């Protein structure tokens, strides 16, 4: 335990530009979500609850804003005037709601990581934004600084709360995942337990994971296949090809779609101008009719 040790360790975690300084190898996990395919059915959200042992907080706590949905489906109505926040005057069914699945964007330069006083949230070499529950003291600074507000705090001791998982449902809890105690922050992990299990299983064969060998829970259940997850470095992977087809760059601050104006491209990342470099690409909706 010395200052030298501190400085050496430091360089492993912190570098000047998270995107370029340490190249990801052999994995960079990323996602793409086709909003045109999304029907807002919420299956992804339910799958996430089952896979990640998310507590079902109940009506009252949900209404109080204490819900723990790592994956949430947001609903947007078209507006007449883009500067106004009021919904359009025309009838809603005419146009239909637009849906957007939102979860941790696993930013490459994550605003949450730099502000944590205890370093409980860090970047992994495969490009995930990790959260160490045991280290978290619950200052909630990470959530305060998250532009997407996708971090969820354990406001109560959910595992011991009655009816969070009804009696027989405790049998379906995922044994690969720890239960989170009162006072720690949590968020979408890109189903890191599946990634790690997959990595271990191919390690003996001396190869890296192939596309499709690891699926996230939300991807697995999406009935329309709107969610694609995979290794961005692997040029064979579907996610890589989708990012390439949409000409979306991980290290760019503005994508081709927005540069060109009238463009056929649909790929963008949310709040890109904040330069957090998210790992999730969205493809914007093209159909105009209701679902």
């Amino acid at each position: 335990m010395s200052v030298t040790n501190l400085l050496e360790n430091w360089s492993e975690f912190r570098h000047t530009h998270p995107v370029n300084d340490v190249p990801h190898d052999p994995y960079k996990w990323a996602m793409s979500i086709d909003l045109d395919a999304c029907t807002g059915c919420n299956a992804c959200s339910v799958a996430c609850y089952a896979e990640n042992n998310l507590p079902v907080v109940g009506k009252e706590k949900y209404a109080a804003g204490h819900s723990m949905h790592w994956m949430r489906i947001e609903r947007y109505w078209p507006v007449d005037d883009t500067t106004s926040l009021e919904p359009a005057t025309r009838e809603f069914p005419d146009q239909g709601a637009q849906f957007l699945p939102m979860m941790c964007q696993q930013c490459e330069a994550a605003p949450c990581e730099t502000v944590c006083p205890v370093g409980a949230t860090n970047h992994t070499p495969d490009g995930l934004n990790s959260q160490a529950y045991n280290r978290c003291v619950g200052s909630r600074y990470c959530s305060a600084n998250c532009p997407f507000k996708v971090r969820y705090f354990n406001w109560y001791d959910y595992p011991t709360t009655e009816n969070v998982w009804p009696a027989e449902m405790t049998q379906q809890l995922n044994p690969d995942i720890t239960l989170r105690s009162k006072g720690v922050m949590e968020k979408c992990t890109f189903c890191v337990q599946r990634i790690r299990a997959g990595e271990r299983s191919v390690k003996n064969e001396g190869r890296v994971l192939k596309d499709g060998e690891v699926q996230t829970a939300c991807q697995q259940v999406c009935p329309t296949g709107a969610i694609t997850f995979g290794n961005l470095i692997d040029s064979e992977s579907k996610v890589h090809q989708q990012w390439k087809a949409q000409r979306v760059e991980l290290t760019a601050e503005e994508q081709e779609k927005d540069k060109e104006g009238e463009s056929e491209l649909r790929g963008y990342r949310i709040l890109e101008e904040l330069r957090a470099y998210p790992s999730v690409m969205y493809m914007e909706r093209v159909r105009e009719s209701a679902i």
Partner: protein
Amino acid sequence: MKDINEDIAWAKINKDVLKSLESPRKLYWVILAVAIAMISVAVGCEVYQYNIGMGVSNLNNPHVWGLYIATFIFWIGMSHSGTLLSAILHLMHADWRKPIYRFAEAMTTFSLMTAGLFVMVHLGRLWQFYYSLPYPNDRGLWPNFQSPLLWDAMAIFTYLSSSILFLFVGMIPDLAICRDNMHDGWRKKLYTWLSLGWEGTDRQWRNFRITYLTIACFLIPLAVSVHSIVASDFAMSQQPGWHVTSFPPYFVAGALYSGCAAIITLFIILRYTFKFEEYMTLSILKKTVRLTFAIAMIWTYLNAIEFASVWYGHDQPSKDVLIQKATGPYAPFWWGMIFCGSVVPLILAFKRFQTNIPVLLVTSLLLNLGMWLERWMIVAPTFSHGYYPWTWDHNQWPSWVQWGIVFGSFGWFTLLFMVFCKVFPSVSMYEVKEMVYHRSRAAKKLEASGLQAKGAH
């Protein structure tokens, strides 16, 4: 009007101040009882929150920060004017500070202690708070040195320990007076121990002066840095309404402002309860009031700068937050802050109110209400109108648990402060003697020169 009557005998100064350690007015005990009642409310709320979970505070996702952080900044801010009076004015040789700097310095220490409690109350797992301190451990884990919260923890610990040292060192000659005059009992033992064998020799005085000056010089940059760092919690983040370059000076000005207002309040209370009318004179009050007015105007100016830079900037989300503050659900509090912080201090500009005690008591309380609202209006609205639309339709208000703890913190501060003033001399005896001496010499000189001038004609 004189700052102090230069005919007061030194023995009388000793007697009057020592009397404050023995027999305060009845109001003292009333204040103490009320303070303890307030603390018990807060303790009850905190025990409840600790056992059930942070959810009972009605904070939620995404409103993860609330009154705790706002009140934390408020108490940190309060601590600044003690340093202003004791260190900055000391270096500037403004001798009118002498009768009032001791309690201002005590205010610094105790408001820092109160602020520290809010960090604990705010943490989700307060039993693990020490993770945020850089302590050696066999896991080789360090805190995250990039985080402004960590700078906060370190700056506050440094400031607290230095200001306790400063308060103590400045009190040594007075503690010796207490030791020599106090009847036997635990307090005599305490004074004997704390006065470190002070005898008032030349050598001791010389060393004392150097030490005191050194700590004063050390404390000033520290005070400025502490609140700049608290401002960095917000300015270094990426959120609209927080990401403002002018926050550090704005926070420091706000800190001095609320601190000066608190000094006026405590001045009035101490003057009455401990019968300090002869030392805490209206003339000194007037000077403090003028200082407060000046700082109020600086704060108003910096506030206007912040609004203007957001308004004329091209950052639409920040502009939206500003518009929401003025027109949204927080509008009554936001306008309340503008009224209490920028309009109410105009009362202080009128000469006839500058020494009017009832008016000043009400005004100083209103100023601090405004400054507390300011902190709340910095913290909360950003969560209701951030970058992301999902946050926009959330309407969230603090629960009685949050209000109870905030309420009780004022009792906690008052208790610490009042106990201090009863146990330790809250007016600096040796410095008031200096002041009286210098003033009477100056008066004699003036008289002599006046006589000469007359004689020449």
